[in-house]
């Protein structure tokens, strides 16, 4: 089986973001960037399936600026075999991204595409589902467990109310949830080895895919602040009294 893993370069999850004063977006200057955490889980899962001989080749793809090379290199250091970068300065929406990914699923004869369920920057939670829709493939979103059973996959999904298990045919699209695995740290030898793994770099325009935005971002603003500072209480009696008599809740 051949796997395609989508990885996105995002502001590191530990960074407290700042909205730009002119409300055109979020400040990206001198901010630490990392691979989207859910995509790390996707890479890890693919590498584990490769270690079990279920997957033969792990191809990792990223769409973005020159710097996405760092993200692809991290995926290669974790154990992916080769990388594809689709270069663009445009900020693309999930529909456009999934069209590009669909192009490579077809071109590379992919059997399984694994993506993070959501990018922690735009929080759309759409790309995997859209990719499956475009390709007409089955989908298993929010996966917390993947088991190969003959020619199918048994996938356990994190859903409202608990866990659901479905059986899907291949080829298929899977999106990862937090508890699918714990991504490894790349070892130094593997980081060195990743430097010689092949990366194809293409210009987005060379693909002739319609990526026109459907959403116009009018502005980005700060969320409303919660009013006032915290009032520290000293005892549990004081807390109960406050909630009962001042807030009238309990």
């Amino acid at each position, binding site marked *: 089986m051949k796997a395609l893993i989508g990885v996105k370069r995002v*502001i590191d*999850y530990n960074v*407290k*973001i700042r*909205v730009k004063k002119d409300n055109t977006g*979020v400040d990206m200057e001198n901010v630490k960037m990392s691979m989207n955490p859910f995509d790390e889980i996707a890479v890890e899962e693919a590498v584990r399936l490769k270690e079990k001989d279920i997957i033969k080749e792990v191809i990792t793809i990223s769409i973005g600026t020159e710097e996405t090379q760092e993200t692809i290199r991290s995926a290669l250091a974790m154990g992916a075999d080769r990388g594809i970068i689709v270069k663009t300065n445009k900020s693309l*929406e999930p529909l456009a991204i999934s069209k590009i990914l669909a192009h490579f699923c077809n071109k590379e004869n992919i059997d399984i595409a694994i993506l993070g*369920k959501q990018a*922690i920057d*735009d*929080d*759309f*939670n*759409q*790309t995997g*589902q*859209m990719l*499956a*829709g*475009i390709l007409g493939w*089955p*989908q298993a*979103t929010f996966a*917390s467990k993947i088991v190969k059973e003959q020619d199918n996959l048994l996938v356990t999904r*994190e*859903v*409202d*109310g*608990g*866990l659901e*298990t*479905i*059986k899907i*045919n291949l080829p298929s699209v899977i999106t990862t*949830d*937090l*508890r699918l695995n714990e991504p490894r740290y790349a070892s130094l030898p593997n980081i060195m080895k990743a430097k010689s793994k092949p990366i194809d770099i293409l210009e987005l325009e060379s693909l002739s895919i319609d990526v026109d935005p*459907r*959403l*116009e*971002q*009018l*502005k*980005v*603003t*700060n*969320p409303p602040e*919660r009013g006032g500072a*915290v*009032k*520290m*209480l000293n005892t*549990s*009696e004081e*807390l*109960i009294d406050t*909630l009962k008599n001042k*807030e009238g*809740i*309990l």
Partner: protein
Amino acid sequence: MKSIVIVEQDNGLVNRPSLAAISAAKKLSSNIDLLVLDPSEINTIKNIAFVDCIYSFKEKQKDVSAESMVNFLKDFIEKYDYVIAPSGTFSKNFIPRLGAVLNLQPVSDIIKVHNETTFDRPIYAGNAIATVKSKDKKIILTIRGTAFQPVDLKGGDASLKILSDIQEVNSSKFISKEVSSSERPDLASAKIIISGGRGVGSKENFTIIEKFADKIGAAIGASRAAVDAGYISNDYQVGQTGKVVAPELYIAIGISGAIQHLAGMKDSKVIVAINKDEDAPIFQIADYGLVGDLFTVIPDITKAI
């Protein structure tokens, strides 16, 4: 303008986030229809305010896959200007797929309607709000349930149309579901939520949280750390990628307050933080804080209340 709201149900009844989705639909269109997969409480559902027509089925459409749902919806929604669903995991699964099949870009998790094409949605775990204008000819939306006032369960008089069953596709098959059953209120609609984090320390210790919650009729929530550590199951997770809640009272116990957790609860009316670390970031967002050992404080409160 015509909207179809695809509702999610609990025990046959339209759940609170779906009632909020109807409320958002009302801001966009004068004509609102519902798609209801489970007809068992249809007579109650018919009374929901502002609804014109309910499309449902002879029997409950059980465990419908995203593939089957989209196959059915792609023609069914043709006459509508808006396709609207709540942000539950069921809707989040099929809505984007529907968008892709129709070559449309859905807008997920909206928290405000500015006008017929312009919406607010949180990005970066709610640390910024994007205002976006959709240029699509048909607009597909998911609604953050906590951001809209649910419509009334009475006052309406919708007509009912019965559809033929949704055809199952073969590529995806439902196998099983492990439902974590609980007598406690549902997270999405609870007035009070007691949430436990890493500080609780173990699955066994979580009974301290449960006893407290049961004493005051609260729902239970958890931080990612508590779920990852196996103290409690995944569907209790509150946060950026878990459930987003906004109860009257949210009590965070042993939760340090990572931004990903705050994203799921910061719209709660009153936030109380109980933590032994006075520097925990949760205190920056809380209304009331108590520094102390949860293993003595919580049993004390539970007893005294």
